[in-house]
């Protein structure tokens, strides 16, 4: 008699359920439920102390009523600019730093790596405050340093000028977070096998062209991941603007991004009373913008990235 005839009866693997349960419940309680709570909140409005279902009326107001839409589009554009600066400055510098770090001739590598990464672990409040002091026209070191090299005329109160404030803040944020793309790219560069590099060298590809032709294509998936992390981080940003410029994101709303706009709408500010329903509508839009961005990445970019198996 052979056992093969009988289907093998495996006991139900309870341990999988048990091990998954805590993560599942915590994630549901703290992410999924609040997310749907927010979506639901955005469909209601308070009228005479009563929550009334108004369908998409809050969104119609957000886009159609100039009292809200002007601020919304302003915040959205500022947010896009914030993201553009990060993509144009933070990520190329991150790649460059990683390439320099992985160069075999470099000494004190561990020191540079740590020093560049440290700002990332600092609190936003500290970063905002320190940079506010550095750039302060009264007590800051920036005017003095520029004076030392004879460029005092270049100094302006950047954080107080409408045309510079947002770019300045973006660059502060870049300074803080440049360590993250650096680390990820650095790890990706280290994982390129030596055989590939050696083969390239045998074919006479060295130096810069080796970086462009061999290494860069191999780290493209990492760059993709970094881009999407930057995108999500930027469109969720709030802390730095709030600590450096306050909730009104001055001057003249020039540094207002979706996060600060949401904060004012949801919690209110000074005499402005909080409106949780409009706040939720803005939060919902932020969610959809981020969702759309991530989908574009997942379905168009990531599927085209070629993966190399070694």
């Amino acid at each position, binding site marked *: 008699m052979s056992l093969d005839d009988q289907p093998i009866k495996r006991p139900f693997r309870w341990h999988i359920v048990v091990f998954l349960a805590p993560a599942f419940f915590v994630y549901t309680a703290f*992410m999924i439920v609040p997310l749907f709570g927010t979506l639901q909140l955005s469909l209601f409005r308070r009228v005479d102390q009563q929550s009334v279902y108004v369908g998409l009326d809050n969104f119609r107001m957000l886009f159609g009523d100039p*009292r809200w839409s002007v601020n919304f589009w302003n915040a959205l554009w500022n947010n896009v600019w914030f993201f553009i600066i990060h993509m144009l400055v933070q990520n190329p510098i991150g790649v460059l730093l990683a390439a320099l770090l992985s160069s075999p001739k470099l000494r004190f590598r561990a020191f540079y790596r740590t020093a560049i990464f440290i700002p990332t672990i600092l609190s936003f409040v500290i970063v905002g405050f320190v940079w506010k002091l550095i750039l302060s026209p*009264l007590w800051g070191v920036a005017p003095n340093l520029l004076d030392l090299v004879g460029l005092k005329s270049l100094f302006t109160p*950047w954080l*107080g000028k409408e045309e510079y404030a947002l770019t300045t803040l973006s660059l502060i944020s870049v300074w803080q977070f440049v360590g993250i793309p650096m680390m990820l790219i650095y790890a990706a560069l280290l994982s390129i096998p030596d055989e590939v590099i050696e083969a390239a060298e045998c074919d006479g590809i060295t130096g810069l062209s080796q970086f462009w032709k061999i290494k860069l294509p191999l780290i493209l998936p990492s760059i993709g991941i970094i881009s999407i992390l930057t995108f999500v981080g930027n469109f969720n940003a709030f802390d730095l603007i709030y600590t450096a410029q306050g909730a009104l994101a001055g001057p003249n709303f020039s540094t207002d991004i979706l*996060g600060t706009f949401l904060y004012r709408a949801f919690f209110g500010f*000074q*005499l*402005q009373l909080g409106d949780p329903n409009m706040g939720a509508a803005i939060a919902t839009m932020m969610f959809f913008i981020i969702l759309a961005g991530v989908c574009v990445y997942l379905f168009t970019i990531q599927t085209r990235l070629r993966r190399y198996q070694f």
Partner: protein
Amino acid sequence: MQTRLLTALLLGSTVLGSAGAAFAQDKTLTIESWRNDDLAIWQEKLIPAFEKANPGIKVVFAPSAPTEYNAALNAKLDAGSAGDLITCRPFDASLDLYTKGHLADLTSLPGMENFSDVAKSAWQTDDGKATFCVPMASVIHGFIYNKEAFDKLGITPPATEADFFAALDKIKADGTYIPMAMGTKDLWEAATMGYQNIGPNYWKGEEGRVALIKGEQKLTDPQWVEPYATLAKWKDYLGDGFEAQTYPDSQNLFTLGRAAIYPAGSWEISGFNTQAQFKMGAFAPPVKNAGDTCYISDHTDIAVGLNAKSPNADAAKTFLSWVASPEFATIYANALPGFFSLNNAPVKMEDPLAQEFVSWRDKCKPTIRSTYQILSRGTPNLENETWVESANVINGTDTPQVAGEKLQKGLDAWYKPAK
């Protein structure tokens, strides 16, 4: 996500906070407040004085950061974990709490008769029938100056606008001092210390403020635009890089003796007294022509109310009646020079600077900030817009006319004055 996390943290901390208080044997009253600067004064002066007179009632003063107070308080009230006594912001923030049933009606509280109708106006329903907070203090706007600088340059406190700008020119020409310590980075300095400070002289205090609410005047009228034109002239007398100068920067510039004039609110007095090493004086906002009636902003700023769900309502009412008494007014006004009692009983104050400020009440007509009552109820919020536009006018981003038009357009978008 951040907002949710914040709410969760706030809720968590309040539950823990109130759990500790529940075990005390005496009745313990907790005061919610944004005045964390006043912690020492409450603990060392006010609370001991009250507890001595009322054995069996303990009072805990539990302040939070000013910018977080409104949000934190609303979250606590909704969760039912707020303290027994609620420090009231003026006007709509508190009115909203009252209509939601978070604040109890105190109209018949013993001691309420000690306050005038104007003093109570910030904490009443629109029809004035119900009062829900006991007024504590008001703040007065004006200018504080460095007496040593004025003496050295031979300047006397200016009474008219021409004098004022002549003085500024003189300080600027001398070059030792920055003529005026103010920045536009935090926006509210420009609006509160600038526009609301000098404005009442133009719109004739209450007359203009009430007319604006009734819709008889508009923010584009000359009396509302002119203060902006004057503010625009301030630009030349502010320090280098004033666009990025924050409120603490301005305070430090003045108390370090680097600036001669500081557009002020009287709440600065106690801080300046400890910080500044030189003699200070104060002058009221200058009038246009010598002999004009002067108007000052004597703004009802702070009051205290009763949490409607407080389990210790009787003890809390005892406390509130004490807050309404002349005894409290005297201790408070002297412990916090610059916060002037709204009590009808005359209060004797020791601080010379505070005396100077309060003396204007006798010769000038008081009003409150124009944007606070009713007009900041809608979207866009007139107070916030005034912050932004005042800073814009000083920065040169907008002309005074454009600022007035923008504000009126924002107001027209939602405000229909009752005719």
